[in-house]
């Protein structure tokens, strides 16, 4: 295989895809979901209604709840479902997939190119908003600088950004395959959503079959999930990263294989 050519093809596909995203209507929802926490925190910062300023550990707990409930489970998950399930399904509905399929490019390479474009865009958006929302929240605290430069602030922030990027990678792979396999990927997204959202009530073995368990293992703080949660030991961070990357690679590989068998019969889609 000519790897130089493959890399150039992946870069070309990613570039074309990103150029197309700029105008895609579905990205409006992604921007809204991604920037919602930033907007709320910015508003809160402007109003400054608190009489007493919480401690830095309270801020950390507030951010942990905001990130793990809203950002990770809702915002990132739904945005990935929206964007990645449409990478191929959207092209089938718009009747444009044949442009790629008529080029001398391995189908797996097309899948990788489109996937990387999606992950790059999503990671950039959610990485940025995670960074901004984190800084905005801690900016309410007078001990912000010591927390970031002398305390654990920087490593917390690094962990949140890493988790958001890994979440985009793993869910991106899963939903890209769902979009190729199902005419209506919403049902698949709903099932995956329920599985991932309530992973903490599953027994240990099943928890380890969720992406969320490995993402959660990388987070600096644990939040209380109520009386039904089954608490298990987090997986080693390096192993967690490898597992999430492995899940992403596996699903992209499967997508390439499915794409190999995909035919252009738009009227049937």
């Amino acid at each position, binding site marked *: 295989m000519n790897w130089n050519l493959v890399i150039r*093809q992946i870069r*070309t596909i990613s570039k074309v895809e990103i150029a197309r995203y700029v105008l895609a209507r579905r990205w409006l929802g992604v921007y809204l979901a991604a920037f919602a926490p930033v907007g709320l925190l910015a508003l809160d910062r402007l109003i400054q209604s608190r009489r007493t300023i919480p401690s830095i550990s309270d801020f950390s707990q507030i951010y942990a709840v905001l990130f793990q409930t809203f950002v990770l489970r809702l915002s990132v998950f739904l945005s990935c479902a929206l964007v990645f399930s449409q990478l191929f399904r959207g092209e089938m509905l718009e009747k444009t997939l*044949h442009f790629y399929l008529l*080029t001398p*490019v391995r189908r797996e390479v097309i899948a990788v190119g489109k996937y990387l474009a999606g992950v790059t865009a999503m990671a950039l958006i959610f990485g940025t908003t995670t960074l901004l929302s984190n800084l905005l929240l801690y900016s309410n605290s007078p001990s912000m600088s010591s927390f970031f430069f002398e305390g654990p602030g920087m490593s917390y922030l690094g962990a949140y950004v890493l988790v958001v990027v890994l979440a985009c990678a793993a869910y991106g792979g899963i939903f890209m395959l769902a979009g190729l396999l199902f005419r209506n990927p919403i049902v698949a997204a709903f099932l995956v959503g329920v599985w991932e959202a309530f992973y903490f009530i599953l027994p240990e073995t099943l928890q380890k079959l969720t992406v969320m368990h490995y993402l959660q293992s990388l987070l600096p703080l644990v939040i209380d999930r109520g009386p039904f949660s089954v608490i298990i030991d987090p997986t080693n961070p390096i192993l967690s990263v490898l597992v999430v990357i492995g899940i992403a690679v596996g699903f992209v590989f499967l997508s390439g294989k499915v794409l190999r068998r995909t*035919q252009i*019969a738009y009227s049937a889609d």
Partner: protein
Amino acid sequence: MASSEDRQIVFDNVSKSYGEVLGVNHVNLSLEPGITSLVGPNGAGKTTLMNLMTGLLRPSKGTVSVLGVSPSDPEVFYRNIGYCSQFEAFPRGLSGYQMVHSTLMLHGLSPQKAEERSWNVIERVGMTEAARRRVAGYSKGMRQRIRLALALAHDPKVLVLDEPLNGLDPMARNEAIELFRKFAESGMHVVISSHIMHEVDIISDRVVMMSGGYVVAEGDIQGVRHEMEEHPIQILIRCDRPGLIAANVFEQDSVVEARIHSDGLGLLVSTRDPDRFYDLLNRIILQHRISIEAVSPADENVHAVYQYLVGGNGMGTS
């Protein structure tokens, strides 16, 4: 040494169905370089055949190969093929130039080379001025030109064109036909579907006639016509004394009909043996010193042949 299959488009007992709907059935074809036209009404299976030929569809049965390469090997297969499909849509947000340039990049050209060749092919289809505009704002004719540019950009050996003249103005049509002829003369395969019969007549080296998913006839149009023994060949003769010719042609058993035109200056003869008839006609002309304006076959064209083969006149654009 290259086998004959390495220069042919081969359908080996190919069938394609969409669930219970038949696309094409038991198609056996070996197409040589030159211009081949696919002819048939809506639903005849022309587009299905083209999509099979270009690997966008997989046969339910049988195999397809183009220049000895199977569509399951896309890296090689699509270097040989350019397909100007009938699909109207284009990816959003891209200009005509971006479409052509990125396609050439995917073919492995360097950015500079891709840029140079993109502008060449865009100029060739007359789209230079509009190339930087988004395709979404193009007219139907402009979209057709960009589709043509995309099909031609990488210098394919096989050009598959689904209704390529749709949306083009008469001048652009003539230019396109001229271009297809040049490609065919250079040894390329040009496979065209068109419902405009006189264009098919003008440009085709051979035709593949389709009806209801079946290939009903194939070959050069005269050859197909001559094989249809149940339909006598019609020959039109314009002359000063058609009655005299009519009185003499029935000495041949193969002549089944002679009809004199109402203007008294023409005659339509139906014969089952045109070669013998032309000999007889020469004799009659010389013997009676008849002044001849024109002699031409009246039904050796795609439309007439298709009518004879399939009946009805539902020629469309499937």
